[in-house]
């Protein structure tokens, strides 16, 4: 066909823009799909205007971008369409995990206090990531010079780990891996932590000691 009806032209232009690998300019349309058809500039313009109008009420819109015409989704549908793609965030770094752990076990705690324990500065990125995940939040400010923010874990944090309360956080010594290089220090720490975690009503020292004995035995 050397000539083409207005309806056919619209179908052809529509299909071409949909199947093209990228946006199409009017020139590209004339040089490819319309090559052997006598289509005037005006006819093509009209077809494009009509298509634009046809698609207004639809979920897909005909738009002209820098490199030509293309169809794109209605912007109001984005929140739902976003669910079609997933982006996997890489695993959390050691620094991130240690910061989270310190906030969990030592809350409310300032950034400076975390840095004191870890011996290195805590990057803003870490605090931001943990806050965005809704695992930590600022619960106040410490009344010391600079009034640093006090961080604590959130209910979402507890939910994520299926904990009813922080008291359910495991006492540390249960997780002491075998072959600790620094047994003495670890045991000492474990004791401190154990008391901190499981002894709100002042658990007797006897219990802790006996628990430690068991663990020591298990280590050997």
């Amino acid at each position: 066909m050397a000539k083409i009806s207005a309806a056919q032209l619209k179908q052809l232009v529509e299909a071409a823009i949909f199947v093209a690998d990228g946006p199409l300019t009017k020139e590209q349309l004339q040089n490819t799909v319309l090559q052997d058809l006598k289509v005037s500039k005006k006819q093509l313009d009209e077809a494009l205007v009509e298509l634009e109008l046809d698609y207004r009420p639809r979920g897909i819109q005909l738009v002209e971008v820098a490199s030509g015409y293309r169809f794109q989704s209605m912007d109001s549908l984005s929140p739902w369409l976003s669910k079609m793609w997933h982006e996997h965030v890489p695993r959390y770094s050691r620094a991130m995990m240690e910061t989270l752990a310190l906030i969990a076990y030592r809350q409310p705690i300032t950034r400076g206090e975390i840095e004191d324990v870890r011996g290195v500065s805590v990057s803003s990125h870490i605090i931001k990531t943990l806050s965005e995940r809704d695992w930590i939040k600022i619960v106040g400010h410490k009344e010391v010079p600079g009034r640093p923010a006090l961080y604590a874990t959130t209910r979402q944090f507890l939910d994520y780990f299926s904990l009813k309360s922080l008291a359910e956080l495991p006492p540390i010594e249960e997780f002491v891996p075998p072959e600790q290089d620094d047994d003495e220090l670890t045991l000492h720490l474990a004791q401190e932590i154990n008391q901190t975690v499981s002894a709100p009503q002042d658990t007797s020292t006897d219990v802790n000691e006996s628990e430690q004995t068991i663990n020591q035995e298990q280590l050997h």
Partner: protein
Amino acid sequence: MTDQPPIIDQAKEQSEPVQQPLPLAFVNGEAVIDKPEDLYIPPDALEVILETFEGPLDLLLYLIRKQKFDIVNLPILQITKQYMEYVDLMKDLKLELAAEYLLMAAILAEVKSRLLLPKRQDAEEDEDDPRAELIRRLKEYEAIKKVAEELDNMPRQERDLFTGHAAPDESVEPIKVLPDVTLQELVLSFQSALKKAKAFEHHHIEREALSTRERMSMILERVSRHHFTGFDELFEASEGKAGVVVTFLAILELVKENLLELVQGEPYANIHVKVSSVQEW
């Protein structure tokens, strides 16, 4: 017509007059056999033709269809003869003759010889037709050949249809799948953080029960910096005595750390709590 028609056309023109009288000569496979000399085709053209056969079955089908034989009453003698002519031609032309063609020649020869043997009277009539297996194979191959052609003609991607796509609007953002963390990792991290702390032993270790620290966080969250909160609002009767004690300890701790301010208008009046705004510097 152009001066030099393509080779394949030439071949058709010259081969067809040769083959045209054949249907007249073969009626139900009971007629005289053609002479090989009649089958003159320019060698280079024949090569092209022969190479288009997909194998012996394809060649046999070609011979059968060309002469409008009924496949069910396959005239084995004539077909065998013609088949052998083609095979000989292929040999003459030094075409790389696939072993399959020779195998088929052997099968045809065997069927032919079995047909020539007198039938035993007591043999069950139909079961013994030596052509049966060949006919079955020919029909089966023909059926596949036909659907392969149909498949080739069906609308397909890249050639007849193209998939339509639209770009997602710029505001479409992939959902972030956040990494999983186990409780054990958390505990091990705490352990490693503490192990790292060289200066740990010199530090004062806070002895508060964790639940008190948790309660401290909760209270800080509930109490406003700007308004006073009733002291008793911080206690939950449902938590029992232990809960009240923990809350009380937490408030004392917060006051001690200058994080909370307690205000009481007069003795025995309600105590009010507010996040401390004391500036110590």
